[in-house]
């Protein structure tokens, strides 16, 4: 999952980026409104954490610009402004959640998880696909109740596929959602991650749709040969 972090205070931005990466997200950072508007329009983020008081272009304008352009990326406003008038204004501008500073990191992470879950149309905090269970909050994955260990990138791929079960996900999409903008991308590595995932999971839940990408679904349904 890839997150755009928009925060002009350098220290806080640094801390948040670290916390988000530790939680398994690919993080892009924008320090002003214009950069944020541009990044948000150009890249398919799974969530945006948006400060309101930004240099060059304020956060609400950035948000309105995205919404007018039909961009419905989940947006969490993270701001020092705690008045209800501002909260209502933020929500009316199209924000999906609103968190005021100071905040606890766990609170922020929990809300981001909920936003991603909601935008994928899921309600349970734990994702399941047949025998495979994934808890985004703790990063634990189990198959038939037995925990398995994944690397950060394997987890990101599985997390994205689990969130979008049943849909065909191209390699490009996967790349876009597991790597940050400045990362040296190579779509061949995706095949490597998927191969390792299939081995570690030991069940046939990731299907390759030739020429299009991957699709994750429970093994009960007849799966095409890989």
């Amino acid at each position, binding site marked *: 999952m890839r997150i755009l972090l928009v925060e002009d205070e350098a220290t806080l931005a640094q801390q948040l980026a670290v916390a988000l990466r530790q939680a398994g997200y690919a993080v892009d950072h924008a320090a002003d409104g214009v950069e944020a508007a541009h990044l948000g329009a150009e890249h398919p983020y799974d969530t945006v954490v948006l400060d309101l008081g930004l240099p060059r272009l304020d956060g609400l304008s950035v948000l309105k610009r995205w919404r007018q352009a039909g961009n419905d990326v989940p947006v969490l406003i993270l701001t020092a402004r705690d*008045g209800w008038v501002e909260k209502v204004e933020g929500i009316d501008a199209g924000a*999906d959640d609103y968190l005021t500073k100071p905040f*606890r990191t766990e609170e922020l992470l929990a809300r981001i998880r909920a936003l991603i879950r909601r935008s994928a149309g899921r309600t349970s905090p734990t994702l399941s696909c047949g025998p495979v269970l994934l808890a985004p909050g703790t990063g634990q994955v189990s198959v038939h109740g037995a925990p398995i260990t994944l690397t950060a990138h394997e987890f990101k791929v599985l997390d994205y596929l689990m969130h979008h079960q049943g849909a065909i996900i191209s390699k490009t999409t996967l790349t876009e959602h597991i790597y940050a903008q400045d990362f040296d991308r190579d779509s061949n590595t995706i095949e490597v991650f998927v191969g390792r995932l299939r081995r570690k999971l030991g069940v046939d839940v990731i299907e390759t749709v030739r020429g299009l990408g991957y699709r994750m679904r429970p093994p009960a349904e007849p799966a095409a040969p890989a």
Partner: protein
Amino acid sequence: MKRTSIARRLLLIATLWSVGTLCTTGWLLETLFARHVDRTYVAELDRELNSIAAALEWRNDGQLELTRQPADPRFDLPYSGAYWQASSGAQTLRSRSLWDVDIPVAIERRVPEGGADIRIGPKAQSLLVKTRRLQLAGADAFVDIAVALDRTELRQAKRSFRHLLWLSLGVLGVGILGAVWAQIRFGLSPLGRLRAAVAGFHAGRAAALSGAWPVEVQPLVDEINALLQRNQEAIDRSRRQAADLAHAVKTPLAILANSAQSLPAPAAHGVMQQVDAMRRQVDRHLARARAAGAGGAGRGSVPVRPVVDELVRALKRLHAAHPIDVRIDGDAYFAGDRQDLVEMLGNLLDNAWQWARGAIGVTLAERDGQIEIRIEDDGPGMPAAVMAQAVQPFARLDEAAQGSGLGLAIVRDVSALYGGALDLAQSPMGGLMVNLRFPAASR
């Protein structure tokens, strides 16, 4: 102090001078007319007297004789009201109308015009009498001539004139007062418009008093507008400062809280507690700094229901994982700043949402010059001890009341600026019931 009205004052003055003027005029006209009528009657008496004096002669046998009867037929009609009489010594000649009585000698009253007087004649007639003593040719004896006319006609003339006079003056007076009233209405209409404009501002329909005003009123309007603007600017400035302060304090607090997470657990916990305490203090004081209060320029008549609707819409999004059924009954108008109302209701609804199991009730009512806003939920409610503590002014925001405590404290602070009352009770729905009461908006 008794309230004065300019219109009433002007009307009173106009009534006094117009009634005074009309009465004086009436009295003057009546007097002049009476004098004129008297003069006409006396002149008629003189004429008759002269003709009788000219027709009187001494006959050779020493008898007095009227050689020519007066033309007026009334002198021949008994008790007709027109009489003449001429007497000398034992002799008396009378008009036939007198029959055989005399024109009385007793004078009732003198009339200023032409030496006439008033006497009571036969059949209690009030007579205007003129007398003359003369000597006729051929004798030394004096002859006393008296001519009398009944005053009934004269009095009737005067009376009908008086009626007509006062009737016209009355109509004139009513007309004048009507005109004065219209003039006052028209003259003072800018003040009425000013009052309506101020009311419109109060009701939140306008931000300032606009339009063209007469030169007498314009300075007042300008001054009111300047005052409103200064007031609004002061509130805006204070809100901006509060926002700047919020940013200046809370971002470092967020950094501090994040930094603390790399500390060993007990230290991190300690720092987080302090950060939370600071956040609550800052939130509460900033909320108070932002509040416009009852003296705010934005004071208006704010319909409460749209504010509740707006907040519920936002809260549904904020608590998307926690769907709540919100029932809103009634409506009310809040006399004050909209932002203050949003702040209070936002805190109360958010609290209710956090505690509710599945339903929130909002009841808005207006009665006895008060508006009542009741927000209740079906959550676990609040222990009585905490309830009592939470409504104390300047209550400490204990861990015990956390979650509700800060919001309630802010609501209490802001509502106090409007002379509002906040109380807590157990809701029939099961959870907490918060009652907010304010003086109603005057509409």
